[in-house]
Each structure stands twice: as structure tokens, then as C-alpha cells.
């Protein structure tokens, strides 16, 4: 069982987390976004072998964060808050 570092709670069991997609998959706004661009946003995933930057959410506290991990070795490389405005 993997241990994921929640930026808010610290290391917790992987079962407490949900996967939230690739980090950096920016949403293209607008009704006239080219359909290929929109399709890539919706469906194209990088699925790398090795280092991956991903969004995860810790369901217990609700924190969404960016985690870097190695998909081959399951090593966790880093985790950080999303970096939005924090009042």
C-alpha cells in the first residue's frame, strides 16, 4: 500500500486518495474551442512510464494537490498545493 503525502495532512494510505488527472491539463474555455483541442483536454492522457505529474485529492480533508511520482517504481518524488489564491 502506497503512502501519499497530502500537503495538508502528511503521509496517508493511498486508499484515502482519488486520482484527479494529469497536472497541466489546462482547460480551454469558450464555445469555439477547436474540437481537437477540446478532445485532447477531455481524453488525451500522457500515461508516462516513469516520472508523472498528476493531480490527486485527499478525500479525507478535500485537498487537491500536485504529486510527482514514478509510475514504474511507485516512488513519490514530490507533492505540493495547487498554488491557487489562498486568502
Amino acid at each position, binding site marked *: *500500500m*502506497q*503512502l501519499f503525502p497530502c500537503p495538508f495532512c502528511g503521509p496517508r494510505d*493511498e486508499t484515502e486518495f*482519488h486520482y*484527479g488527472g494529469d497536472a497541466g491539463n489546462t*482547460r*480551454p*474555455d*469558450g*464555445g469555439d*474551442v477547436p*474540437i481537437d483541442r*477540446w478532445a485532447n*483536454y*477531455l481524453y488525451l492522457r500522457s500515461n508516462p512510464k516513469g516520472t508523472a505529474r498528476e*493531480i490527486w*485529492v485527499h*478525500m479525507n480533508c*478535500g*485537498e*487537491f494537490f500536485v504529486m510527482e511520482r514514478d509510475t514504474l*517504481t*511507485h516512488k513519490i518524488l514530490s507533492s505540493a498545493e*495547487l498554488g*491557487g*489564491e*489562498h*486568502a
Partner: protein
Amino acid sequence: MTASRLATGGSAIDRSRPVRFSFDGATVDGFAGDTIASALLANDVAVVGRSFKYHRPRGIWGAGVEEPNALIDIDGASPNTRATTEPAREGLVAKSVNATPNALADRNAFLDRFSRFIPAAFYYKTFMWPDWHMFEPRIRAMAGLGEVDRSWVSSGPADQVNHHCDVLVVGAGPAGLAAAKLAAGAGLSVTLVDDQREPGGSLGYRDGEIDGKPAATWIEETLAALAAGGHLILPSTTAFGIYDHNLVGLNQRHFDGRRDTLWRVRPGKIVLATGAIERPLPFANNDLPGILSADAALSYLRRHAVLAGRRIVVATNNDSAYEVAAAVIEAGADVTVVDIRRDGMPAAPAKMKLVKGRTLASAIGRLRVEAVTLDDGSRLDADCVLVSGGWTPTIHLFGQAKGKLAWSEARAAFLPGDPVDGIAVAGAAAGAVSLSEVFTSAEKAVAAPGAQVPAAPRSTGPEATGGISAAWPKPGSKGRVWIDYQNDVTVKDVELAARENFVSVEHLKRYTTLGMATDQGKTSNLPGLALMAGITGRTVPEIGTTTYRPPFTPVPLASFAGGRVGQSMAPVRRLPLESAHRESGAVFQEYGGWLRPAHYGGRDADADRTIQDEARRARQSVALFDGSTLGKIEVIGPKAAEFVDFLYYNTMSTLKPGRCRYGFMLSENGVVFDDGVLVRLDEHRFVVSCSSSHVAAVHARLEEWRQDRFGCGAVYIHNATSQMATLTVSGPNARKLLETVGLGLSLADADLPHMAIGHGGYGGNEIRIARVSFTGDRSYEISIRADRAEPLWAHLREAGKAFDAVLIGLEALMILRAEKGFIVIGKDTDGTTLPHDLGSEGPRAKRQTEYVGRRSLFTEQASRGDRLQLVGLTVPQGEAPLPTGAHGIKRSDGRLRSQGFVTSSYESPTLGRPIALGLMECGAARHGETIEMQHLGKLRTATIAAPCAYDPAGERLNA
């Protein structure tokens, strides 16, 4: 006379405490400290079980977890328990497995005479036509090991423990004890586990002297020092798996009636001191009872004072058996050692006869070994054969942790290869033989940069040597040479697999079942793949090993389940008013994780009539309904309006404070994700009323957009669903009823119109009333603090008597909403339904601002003319309701094609006819068209109609 208990000795047994148990109905006498296997051996019980496939008689082979043969059922509760690891206990009832009526006189033993006709994969090949599943039950019944006693009841849930330590040492033999001692000396917290009841491992019965002390004294002192230092020692505990990030699973046995305990350990470092397992040697009939692992025989002799035979042949290819030979000679046996090697062996002990450069060709005997023949044709009488085919390091856990193995020609075994982070291997598991090597490896395992590790123990006695000459099974062997005892795999089966090109080790395993039994091939995997190497002209490392997976030994499912049994397996959520509903005779059902009243009174056969009655009466006067599960997620903050605009398909920022609006939330792919009413409490505060079973998902979605797009200071989200109870009063007399209760606000339609909210009070508590209707009738949803809801609910029921109010459960509500054509997401929609499929075209056509899922509503797919659209369906007069799931069909070229399906279907008591909702191709434009419906091969007709079957003008909302 063959196996027997000696008059003296036995470090593990207590002769002052005799124990008596039964095996296959016969009485067995032993002592405290015996295992079932040692006691059976002491009583000279040779045949202890029957083999899996051929029902061959089998005897005890080993003395530990590797045992392939001696499987027993204990007290009907623990099937397939290894007799070698199970303590003998007074009154215990043990039964051999796969034997009818018992191991000695098994009536299926005839199968063995047909073995020629039952090779590997025989069943798959023979019973293919017409269908394997026709034959499978009979074959399984005949082939299976152990039996589960279905009447057995658990003594309670198994404990589960989460545990942390600096160093977890697996195995308390010489390497593990040394590693634990060194780690403790370095100031680290240590947990030491061992699968045997007595720590010590091979030191408990092999020669050794450490720091000038006898091994037994050193073991005792080391354990005492660890205990005194506050370190945790867990005997009878198997480390069965290493999982991601070095989580280690332990299963601890208690032997006192308690369930096993599951430990989840997160150690800073793992030291695997798991030892090595002795391999058999290949010769014909090498599975006869009376043929034991030499190491096991030494363990039985020294620990339980049991001598395995009187006339013993020791067959070996390595040095380790010589210590065994010397010991059994000293205990009074007549011993001949047959060594495959011509030279390079250790000095032969006195009185030992040695045959050099020979191997065993076969064992002779029916139910137990009587003699052996050698490869030169000579014959030796024997009542016992002790075998050592070399040592297989126990590297299972290292393999599970994705450790790569390295082949050692010198040891004729796979050893741990490149190190794995956080895991060190020590002792025999790492290929160490002498105690000096063992202690050196333990020192290396514990060493860490900056750690002050004390001096390692020193071996001061005689040292074991590791000379070996590989003796793998060979292709073309005469007779039946067994490789996997537990799954009955012979050399010929492996040859057959090779002939049929199942030469990859993973295919070999699955085709022959080699290594797939409960022992997971602990004694058989390496010989099997070495044989495949021989057959195919490759080296053993070229063949490789199969993947190591947990568990190392079987773990009871109860251990994994822990407390998650019965209701705790998937706990239901409960209403604050559950007790009140029970008093009202509610029949509860689970809906989306909530336990809710399905209807009040009327169980089983009366249920349908009761539900119909509730739905009819609800329309006549007034109904009371507990809607507490309805989502109440508050969205607060300066950007709250902008936020809900983005989250909803419908524009919400134009909503006035104190008003409500129905809308959809979409997923980014445009599919309708949830529907419900949004309440605007004030300028910067909204309440999202989402579907009851969808609250957690909606909440997570709101959080995601808040954190990812809007920023945490702009919007706050608070899920208040369980803080408030919501009591719904619905029906033509709803307002009249509420006016008699006194809620502290004006209920006049001018003050509180449909889709508005009002604030009042009841019993000193604030209440919020929303005029929102899921029934189509005038409705009031009253929200109040959950813990103060009960008096209000009682008051409503009491006041309702004057109006013939009816309590309705969820089933009646489903009828009422379906009459109105109101959908339930996930029931009347699926993973392709877009908002305009449900008739909500406006925002798609007009909205200019951004919202979740917007772009997906304008794809080619979303604009198709033949999309499935929400419709109502009526049936010819007098017919029964359509089955939910029935398909509307189209005929083209003589073939049937689905054009949609029924999603909800009920008998409407108010309309006096069946009603249904469905999704049909171009359904919105086809009202009035009659189509064919098919369900389970039966055809009938239905007419497409508007979804709303009752009060389409909505007059009852204000009636």
C-alpha cells in the same frame, strides 16, 4: 519398528504435560511443545494425507511452512492447515484431507493406477466437449483439498494492528537474532517476527557455539535482552507479504481460540532473515511416506526427540546432510549415506556407511518406504530415507518487493540480486552457510551511514560448509519422479509441457499447475524450472522464476476482513428520525447508501398495495415525507455567484436572494451529472440541493473547481447535509396543515410562492422552508437542525390526523415524481445523456458564458438527430406496466434493432393506468407514435407520450 520417540531429549517438548488428540479418528499421544506432525511421527503414523490428483499416500516431508504433504483440517474450522506448524493441543480433532474415509484407506486411491491416462492438462483436454463447466463440479469435488465446515461460526472479528518500527526483522534464526541484536544496540526500535512458536530457527537444532556459549544459551540471552529493551518479539507470526512502499503484512496466530491478528507494519527498514528451504532429490517414487527432508528429521530429533527411522538411508548432494547423519547415528539408527559426489565431501562420522558417486534410482514400498535402489541397480533396505537436494534461499518477500534475483552456480540457487531500497537480506536467505558468514551478513544488513552498530556475534564452534553438486531432475527419468508433491506434478508432466511448447516458466506453471498449490511450490519450483532448462538446453537463469506474489503462506480471509464484517462491511447511513419511522411501521431499504423508509407498514405480499395506497392518498390530501438525505451543500463567498454559474448548465447568478431554481450540473463531456434545486440565501450564499446518493460526488466536484479555478479565498464550500433534517409536506392540504403547526412565518402564496424560501422558527430553532416540489403538488421542504427534528416531525404527524395525512416512503415518491415526468439521474439518464436530450435546450441555445461541459454540447455527436430523448410511454388499456429495461424496437431488413428503452415504470393509482419513462430515438418529436416493445423475447406495443403524464399545466403546485 520405525519412527519413534526417544526416552530422553527434545528441547521443545515438556514431558510433564502430555496431550492427547485425534487424527482420522485414532488417538495420538504427544507432549506440550509437539506439533501435530512431530506427534504423528512419534506415533509412527506414516500416511498423513492423500495427494491432490492421484490420491497417492503421502507422509510428512518437512518441519515448517514449506510442508507440501501433511495438510489437515482442524476441528472443521481451519482447512488445509500444515501439520508441521500446528501445535498439538489436548482434545483437538484433526483429519487428513483429500482422503475418504481416511488417509490410510482412501477409496479413491485407484486413481493412481490410471495415472498414465491422467497427465498434465488431462481434464482440460478431455472434458472440453461440449462444455468444461458440465464436468467441472464433479471433478472439483473429487480433486479439491480440505473442506470447509459450513456450520462453523466465527468466534468474532479478527484484530488488525497498525504498527511502526525502525527495523522489522523477518525470521528469528541466527541471522535474524543477530540483526535484531545489532539494530537494538544501535538504538533503533526493533520488531522481530518468526513463523515458528519458538524463535531460534536452525540454531534450535543445528550445531553451533556463539561468543563461547552454546547456541541455546545465546538465543535465550538475545531474546531476553531484546525484550528488556522494549523491542517487540512476535513468534507464530508470518510476514506474508511486502506491498508498495514497503508495507509488510503479518499474520499472527494465537492458538487460544482467538482469530489470527493481521499486522500492517510500516518499518523504516526491513531485514529479511528468512533462511532457506531444503529441496527434495529426484528419484522414482520419491513421494513415498517415510521419505523426509534431512533437515526436518534433524529438527524432529533435536526438538521433539523423535527419531524418524531405525534403518536410514541419507541421500544427498551437499554437505549439510552429514550433520544429520551423525545425529541419527548417535540416536541409535543404522545409517547409509548415498552421496552423488565422488569427492569433496566432509569427513564421515564414525559408524556411517558411505556410498560415493551414486544416486537413488527409486524407492520401493506401498504405503511407506521399505527399500531403495541405487543407479547401479543395488538395493538397500530402509524404513526411512532422509533427503537433502540442496537449499533454496527463502527470497519470496524480496521477490515480492520487486527485488531481482541472481543465479549462484556455487550454491545451485537464486540469491538476492541488486538491493531494494529499505530492504536488506541476511543469513541463509542471502546464501550464507557458516555462522560466521551469517553474522557478517547480519552486520551488513543493519549497517547504515552514521549508525553506531555494536560488534557482531562471533561463531566459536564448528562451522558448516556449503559444498554442493547440483542434482536436478533429468528428462527421460525412469518411473514416476515427483517434483511438486502437493499438486502431483512429475518429470513426465514437465516433459509433456515442453513437448507442447509450454516452455516459458509462467506457462509451465499454469499448464502443469507446478507450484500452484497451497505451498506455492516452496520445495518444487526450482527443481521444476531446472528440469525445463535441461529439457530445452537452456540454463536455469535463462528460464527464470515465476513472479513472487503475496501471500507467502495462506492467510485466513478473516484476517484481511478484520472488523469489516456483517453491517460493518458496508455501513449504511442512517436518518436522524429512524426510530420515529420504525415506530410508524416503516419498512426500510437501502437507497444510495442511506437506510430509508421504502413504505410504512405492509410487508412482503402487501408491499405493492401499501405503496399504491400511499401514492394515491398523497394526491388526495397531504403527505409527509422524510427528505433529510437531500444534499445541502453551501457555497459561500465573493465569487459564489460566478462559481455556481460555472458549475451549472443553467445561469444561476440571475437568481434573486430568497429564490430557488432547478438546474443540471454537467460533466466536462456534457453528460448530465446531477440535477437539483439551487437556493440563493443571499447575495453571496447558495445551497446546492443535489441528489441524495450523489452528495459526496457533487461535493468533491465543487471542491475541485473551487481549488483549481476559483481559488480558496473566493469561494467556501460547506457540506451541511447531515446537519439538517428536511421534512417534506406535500399535497393540496399542505399549507392548511402547516398553518395549524405555527412555523413563525407567513405561508401565504404572495409571501412564499413556489420556488421561494422562507425563514421561520419552531421550538426555538431556526427553520428554513423551501417551496420546491418533487411530487408536482404544493410542497414545503422544512429544514431544521437534525437533532431537533423529532418534535417537529411528531407535531406534523399529529396535526396531519385532521387532514388524513399519509406518511409516504421512497417507493410512493418514485411513483409521484414519475407521474410528473421528473427524472432520477442515473436511472432515467445514462452515461450518454445530454441536457437537451431531457428537453432542456435553453442554455445550450442561448448562454454566452462559460460553464462545465459547454463545448461538449456542440460536437457532431451531441448534435445528431437520432439521439435518445426522454419520453413518456403509455400502454394499451388493461395491460400491465412495461418492464423497466424493455426495449423499443425497430424492424429493418427483417432484423430487430433497439431504438431506446424503458427507464422507469409504475402503476399510477391516481391515473388508474401504467405510466413509464424512457429514452427513445428522436423521442421528443414522436409523441403519439405507437412502437413495438420487446422484453425477454416478448413483444408488445406502447405509445410515445410527453414525459409528464399528470397535471401537465402544473396547476396543482398552487392548488
